């Protein structure tokens, strides 16, 4: 399990990525994240809905009511154009971050020289 503090900044990317091809709803998204991360990362409900709130306020996603299941209406989410743009920027940012931080990641035994 990954410490949630570190990865929290990237939940936006994960959610947007899952919404790129299809609209979805809360539980489906959190399940997919669990599956794709091979169980190494599991979103808490409140983390997921904080992200929804944040992304919707920034107009990166929009919510709508889906059909009824058991007489209740689920909230579905779809990504907006601004959201796709933001996703692309975040991906570039992540690659850069990975590249920079990667330069400082050494295995313990490599470190021996200094």
């Amino acid at each position, binding site marked *: 399990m990954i410490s949630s503090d570190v990865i929290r900044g990237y939940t936006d990317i994960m959610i947007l990525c899952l919404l790129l091809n299809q609209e979805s709803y*809360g539980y489906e998204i959190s399940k997919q994240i669990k599956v794709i991360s091979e169980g190494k990362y599991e979103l808490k*409900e*409140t983390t997921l809905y904080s992200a929804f*709130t944040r992304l919707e306020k920034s107009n990166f996603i929009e919510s709508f009511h889906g059909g009824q299941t058991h007489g209740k209406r689920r909230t579905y989410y779809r990504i907006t154009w601004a959201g796709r743009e933001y996703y692309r920027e975040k991906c570039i940012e992540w690659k850069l971050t990975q590249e920079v931080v990667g330069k400082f990641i050494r295995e313990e035994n490599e470190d021996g020289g200094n």
Partner: protein
Amino acid sequence: MEAIRNYLDSMFLSLPRTAEILQMKEDLLMNMEDKYNELRLEGRSENEAIGIVIAEFGNIEELARELNIDLEQPNNVPMVDLVEAEEFVDNKKKSGVLVAAGVFLCITGVAMLLLISSVNIFQILGYGFSSASLSLAGIIVLLLFVAVAVGLFIYSGTLVEPYKYLEGEFYLNSQAESYAKTQKELFRNRKTYILISSVLLFILSPVSIFITSMFDNQGIQILGVVFLLLMIAVGVTRLIIMGNTEEAFNILLQYRRTFKKGKG
């Protein structure tokens, strides 16, 4: 499943009941129930499944922060318990009685004005008074009645003043809620009875004028008008008391309505 709902209820207790937040709560409940059902299908026990679902809920403060709600603020939504609900209903009833008494005084004040200015006709006190001085006396009595009525109105206002916060957002605990519901239910028959009897009184009140107009006596005719006013006064008084009692229950029970914006 009930445990999950209760848990969610308690988590959302500190958040305002806006449409946005209630929808979010509904969504979260559905997610948690889905998760619970899946865990059960995987063969987990009921307690285990509930435990996992609750453990994976997270932290309500995280959500509140994103919604710009300050949970640190001393509980912005007051909770009404049974004692407070009973006190409110009691005071609201008392306030209704006082308002009704005030209105009664205003109407009977007019009746008094009528009676006093017609003292000559009744020949009770002889003919010694000029009509101007009788009118003046009548008006003074009317004003006295109205003054007392105004005092009653103001005092009735102070009785319900401490409960002004019920106009905004509040929570009713389950005891208080069932109290308000049963009392309202019990009050229903009485309400119908008061409504019908008051309306009957209003409809019948002109009868006193019809009857007294048959007499060729001005004094009796004036008494007819006075009687009409009294009947109306009684009807209005009953309606006001009834309305206030009914309103007390309705105010308590409307706490479930949603609010457009967070804090009121």
